[in-house]
């Protein structure tokens, strides 16, 4: 992307006395991780294309506390949650969209009892919404006939029973959608959840992401589609471990849509 992205903040909206349609919750991975930043930018590109009035919190956003909670640190989680809720409530945020299923699950399910009540949407759900309301249309045939297999993120799928939105969006690309043997509610975790992303795995005979990559390779895909920045890292590493990176790309649904 050569042009600089226009990314307005809530503070700027506030200064103009306006409210955006949605708050885009970028998340820690989306803000700092080099691979995840590409997903963030792709999603912003989609938002611009669909002429969505959006804003981010920018430097006022802090980690949701999700990973601390799953590691067992309820204190840190609730501190983070309450700080974020104070900011979100001060801006009177109503609707939040995020590319990270962990942030999605955490804000949607665990913030309400701490005083944070918002309509929280995963970006695949939001893209589907933009498509069905006609605000976003795909012109190109970039992926026509390509074999794409979708890896369900645990915190979107099993955790929140959303299996269809990512698939519905992918179908719009005219790609050839192929399913792994373990998919939807029986999908295998990529291995990053529950704070595993930040530590070495316990002793075993294999890494979880490699096992999951084997599931994906069985479908002989051209592209492995993901809907979570952590899954993306894990699957990318898995594909590298299998030395298939020249044949198979691992792309977030936001990237797939932004490119088509």
């Amino acid at each position, binding site marked *: 992307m050569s042009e*600089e992205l226009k990314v307005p903040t809530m503070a700027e909206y506030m200064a103009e006395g306006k409210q955006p349609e949605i708050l885009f919750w970028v998340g820690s991975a989306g803000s700092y991780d080099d691979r995840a930043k590409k997903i963030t930018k792709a999603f912003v590109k989609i938002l611009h294309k669909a002429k969505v009035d959006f804003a981010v919190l920018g430097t006022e956003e*802090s980690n949701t506390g999700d990973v601390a909670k799953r*590691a067992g640190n309820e204190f840190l989680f*609730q501190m983070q949650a309450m*700080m974020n809720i104070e900011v979100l409530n001060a801006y009177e945020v109503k609707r939040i969209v995020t590319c990270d299923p962990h942030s999605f699950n955490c804000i949607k*399910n665990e913030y309400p009892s701490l005083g944070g009540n918002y309509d929280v949407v995963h970006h695949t759900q939001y893209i589907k919404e933009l498509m069905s309301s006609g605000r976003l249309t795909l012109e190109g045939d970039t992926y026509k006939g390509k074999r794409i297999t979708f890896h369900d993120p645990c915190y979107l799928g099993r955790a929140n029973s959303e299996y269809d939105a990512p698939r519905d969006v992918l179908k719009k690309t005219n790609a050839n959608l192929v399913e792994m043997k373990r998919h939807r509610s029986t999908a295998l975790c990529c291995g990053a959840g529950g704070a595993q992303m*930040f530590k070495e795995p*316990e*002793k075993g005979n294999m890494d979880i992401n490699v096992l999951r990559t084997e599931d994906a390779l069985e479908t002989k895909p051209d592209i492995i589609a993901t809907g979570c920045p952590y899954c993306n890292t894990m699957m990318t590493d898995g594909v590298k471990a299998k030395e298939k990176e020249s044949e198979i790309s691992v792309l977030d649904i936001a990237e797939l849509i932004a490119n088509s």
Partner: protein
Amino acid sequence: MQYIPNILFLIILALGIGYFTLNIKKLIRNIKLGKEVDASDNKGERWRNMARIALGQSKMVKRPIAGFLHIVVYVGFIIINIEVLEIIIDGLFGTHRIGLKVLPESVYGFLIGSFEILAVLVLVSVVVFWLRRNVIKLKRFLSSEMRGWPKNDGNIILYFEVVLMCLFLVMNATDTTFQNLGHGNIISQFIAPWFGDNPDTLHMIERTAWWLHIVGILIFLNYLYFSKHLHILLAFPNTYYGSVQPKGKFNNLEAVTNEVKLMMDPNADPFAAAPEGAEEEVPAKFGASDVMDLNQIQLLNAYTCTECGRCTSACPANLTGKKLSPRKIMMDTRDRLEEVGKNIDANGGEFKDDGKQLLGDYITNEELWACTTCNACVEECPVSINPLSIILDMRRYLVMEQSAAPMELNNMMTNIENNGAPWPYNQMDRLNWAKEE
């Protein structure tokens, strides 16, 4: 003299039901050692879950072979047990096949005939189950936690069912009046010739099978408390109390909320005297290190687990050779709870510290840290058990009471505390991505 069989029957029945009641009371007492938990919400959905998952076996059929066989045994077991009602009435009042006196012959014949067919189907299914466990050696029945008693327990249950079904068929085959009826002996008519035609011998075999059948059922009933087979009763309350929230929603600890609110309140006086009555309050323990720290639903979960291992066979950590097995988490919880219960019984109703706990003596840190919180175990469980909630509560204890998280996780948490991200990046750089190429 003629009432001796009736009295004997009454005594056996009373003993069987009495001992069972005693153990159920113990089970309820043990579950109540856990923390109370409010499950008074969503009554309609809870009843529907019970009807669908426990009664309707909706999750069993996700694995079609085991699911189908299980339904056969389950339906057979429930329906054939209608026959027990007749046996009890006959036993208590000295009647013989009271059903024949209250029902038209054809209806009675139809009922018993269906029972006989079901009995054969149950026998076939039980044999397949036995083969799956002992000959085909399915991986999920071979994990290390299944060695010893759990393996024997599984087989004993199958043997019980074989014996009970055979006794039922023999009882019918050797009952000359029933055979002469010509209704309902769909299966037993083929077995009848095996026993000859001496009326005295037949009568003796029939009586022996009848008595052994009812005694066997009572023994089986009492075996439940000591076995994984408790699920035939507890699946119902367990699916009722199972979570009705999205699986990703983990509970927020209230004790923590209170402290965090106090910390964040600029008007809070850190030196203020404790409010009245507060001095008697024991400071809340965060997370769980023993069964008493878990809640009552988690303990009910442990008693309900029938060790089928579907959870473990779907667990990404277990599939890749890590020590974690969600089934073992449930089995350990039950074993420790039983140990605590026995301790209470031995010490006149009070628990005496035995220097042991669930954490460390049963479940290791290594198992707990291997979990990805992916919810595959929760999704798989055919009776709505949640091993993940126990894992999380024990992690909470490790982190908040013992500061015993792995080093890398401590670094990650320090980063979040200091700069609001799990990596050591500056909070002020959070929007830099928008300006980068």
